[in-house]
């Protein structure tokens, strides 16, 4: 029955549908044409967003995934198309973002002949992917794709790369789809946590005078935000987050101390140093979080809950390791937790919070004599006027840290940023991905003049699909974060960090995007209000203080105690 066979390209698209894919970000090219040709027939079922550069596709897929929790999917052609994805794949690996990247490859019989647009995509991406596979025959497609999605989603999520040879796209195959069932080859996927460890954790928490929950991205991934809050409420335990864990706890929660780390809040950093027990959930003690390890949390015992065994004792030695999913593990601990007053600890937190706020007020929020606008003021104003369920996306650098410090969140998965890899140019495409995944939400992106220009071409994508992204360009005509370091640690030798910029608002206008250039403190609020209420895409270019620093800051190689505040 020859007519019941379909092409590999079609089998791929049906497989994607079976996995619940509704949006693909991609860019066509020579080798991937058979797949795109079939996609033409599937436009009603699968939405394809044509980006302006493959790196935009992968960052958009990341943004989509971080906003929705579903794996992001992107298409790129062989060779340059595939290599342009590499940065995003590395970023997704660092930040545990589930992606399925499908890149075309030259035909099986042409492999290794330096064929036009041939690049060894599998080898290039081996260190950056959770798994990768080269499909060389159409008959493999269904089994490989279900396995790919399973791997991307399960355990600690991550990127999967599928290299799809041209012959496999055009070959005919019979379609039958069975969801991937992992073989229990490594024993149980997640061994049960011994009850001894659970009761030890409960005892440690109940006996602690100054416990502190650190909520990492693992809490968001496993959907444990509510349980994490419940744990905090039940035991009267203050909670702080990592950079990627921001939005796992509502900003206005009374026991919330902000996020810790190099540019984290004074409150969170001080509390880590003072605490006698850290309950670290779904986080990896990155160097930006801990500062210099020997000085990190000198008084604290550490309970580490993580799904990835490889993270235990990797950076910081822990006293108790609970290997498991954040949600399930918190559920196991919860029943034993007793409410304790911990008056001194709570008083300490409130005291540093006030200190923190006073510092911010005097440093950033007052109108400056020069009339120049602080980035903090911009973010704070946006936070004041925007809906509290908005998604905040950032680029990398000072804009990112100001956005992280001053934005307000009430729901999980509302903060999207590039953490581990710190990829400039991430913001704009990630915002595109976020709005494609969460149409009902407002998506606001804070970006700097540097990072914005790394993916400025994606304004074309916003124009084409009329995506209502609200873009705030914090323009200080500097690569601000590098400049700050040069000021503090390189004797103000501003080596190649000053930028001569075009008029961003005019560029936006050329793309048909409503835009304003704000130079004056007094115009700020009205324009922000207009941005929030505007229905379509809009860009605000804000001339911010040229040489502003984000404080407090923990210098590289220093412990969290040694943060500098001016």
């Amino acid at each position, binding site marked *: 029955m020859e007519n019941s066979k379909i092409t590999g390209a079609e089998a791929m698209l049906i497989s994607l549908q079976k996995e619940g894919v509704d949006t693909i970000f991609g860019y066509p090219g020579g080798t991937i044409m058979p797949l795109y040709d079939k996609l033409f027939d599937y436009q009603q079922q699968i939405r394809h967003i044509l980006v302006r550069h493959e790196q935009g596709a992968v960052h958009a897929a990341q943004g989509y995934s971080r906003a929705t929790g579903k794996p992001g999917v992107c298409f790129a052609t062989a060779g340059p198309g595939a290599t342009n994805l590499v940065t995003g794949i590395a970023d997704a690996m660092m930040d545990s973002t589930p992606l399925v990247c499908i890149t075309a490859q030259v035909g099986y019989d042409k492999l290794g002949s330096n064929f036009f647009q041939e690049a060894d995509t599998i080898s290039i991406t081996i260190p950056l992917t959770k798994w990768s596979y080269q499909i060389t025959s159409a008959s493999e497609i269904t089994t490989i794709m279900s396995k790919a999605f399973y791997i991307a989603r399960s355990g600690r999520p991550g990127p999967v790369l599928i290299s799809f040879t041209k012959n496999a796209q055009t070959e005919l195959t019979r379609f039958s789809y069975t969801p991937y069932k992992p073989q229990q080859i490594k024993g149980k996927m997640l061994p049960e946590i011994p009850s001894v460890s659970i009761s030890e954790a409960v005892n440690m928490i109940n006996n602690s005078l100054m416990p502190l929950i650190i909520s990492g991205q693992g809490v968001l991934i496993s959907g444990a935000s509510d349980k994490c809050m419940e744990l905090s409420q039940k035991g009267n335990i203050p909670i702080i987050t990592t950079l990627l864990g921001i939005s796992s706890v509502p900003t206005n929660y009374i026991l919330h101390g902000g996020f810790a780390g190099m540019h984290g809040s004074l409150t969170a950093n001080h509390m880590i140093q003072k605490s006698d027990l850290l309950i670290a959930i779904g986080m990896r003690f990155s160097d930006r979080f801990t500062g210099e390890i020997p000085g990190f949390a000198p008084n604290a015992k550490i309970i580490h809950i993580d799904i990835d*065994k490889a993270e235990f004792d990797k950076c910081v030695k822990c006293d108790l390791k609970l290997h498991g999913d954040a949600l399930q593990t918190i559920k196991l601990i919860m029943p034993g937790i007793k409410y304790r007053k911990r008056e001194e600890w709570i008083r300490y937190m409130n005291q540093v919070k006030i200190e923190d706020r006073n510092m911010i007020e005097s440093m950033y929020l007052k109108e400056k004599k020069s009339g120049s606008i602080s980035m903090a003021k911009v973010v704070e104003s946006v936070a004041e006027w925007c809906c509290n369920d908005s998604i905040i996306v950032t680029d990398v650098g000072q804009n990112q840290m100001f956005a992280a410090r001053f934005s307000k969140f009430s729901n999980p998965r509302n903060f999207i940023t590039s953490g581990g890899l710190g990829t400039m140019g991430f913001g704009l495409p990630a915002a595109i991905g976020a709005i494609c995944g969460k149409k009902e939400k407002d998506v606001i992106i804070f970006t700097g003049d540097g990072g914005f220009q790394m993916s400025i071409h994606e304004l074309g994508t916003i124009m084409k699909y009329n995506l209502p992204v609200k873009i705030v360009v914090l323009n200080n005509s500097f690569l601000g974060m590098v400049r700050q370091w040069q000021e503090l640690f390189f004797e103000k030798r501003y080596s190649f960090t000053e930028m001569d910029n075009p008029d961003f608002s005019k560029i936006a206008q050329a793309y048909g995007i409503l835009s304003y250039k704000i130079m004056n403190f007094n115009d700020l609020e009205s324009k922000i209000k207009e941005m929030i209420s505007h229905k379509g895409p809009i860009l605000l270019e804000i001339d911010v203080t040229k040489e502003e620093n984000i404080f407090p800051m923990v210098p590289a190689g220093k412990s969290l105690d040694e943060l500098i505040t001016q």
Partner: protein
Amino acid sequence: MENKEFIVLAFVNNQISVLNRITSAYLKRHINIESLNVSESYIKGISTVVISAIISEETVERIVNQLNNNIDILNVNYFLQDELIYKEMALYKISPDFIKDSLFFNHFLNRLNGKIIEISNEYIIAEKSGSKAELDALKQSLERKNLLISYARSGNVVLQREPVESLLRKVS
């Protein structure tokens, strides 16, 4: 931490790119691999990979943890040399004069448990298995006597001192 020769023993799916994933864990940390051997294990479709490198225990632990997360790696552990049955095989191409040195030749056959595989007018091929030190010692004696023409060694072949049942439990 002191650097020692650590042997990583992995049971992996016999599939394309698995070996690259393993070696990339070493490359990432700028570590030179001293010896590497891949061969079929006693279970069909599953290969044994044996890698030795001179590293600290902390590093080898991180490598093993990273490898453990790998989809196609079923079981992986690290050992010190004396925790394993650990052998290598070497082939020696030796000058025919070897036979004339009857004392040495007899020592080779009777004490060192060497084997002669091929004899021609130009050379003798001899085979010996043993620890790295034993193979090196023979090589050096041959060199001292100016007899060695060429020399090749296999990678490490290892077996764990562990009951088969517990191994099977780990990989099946």
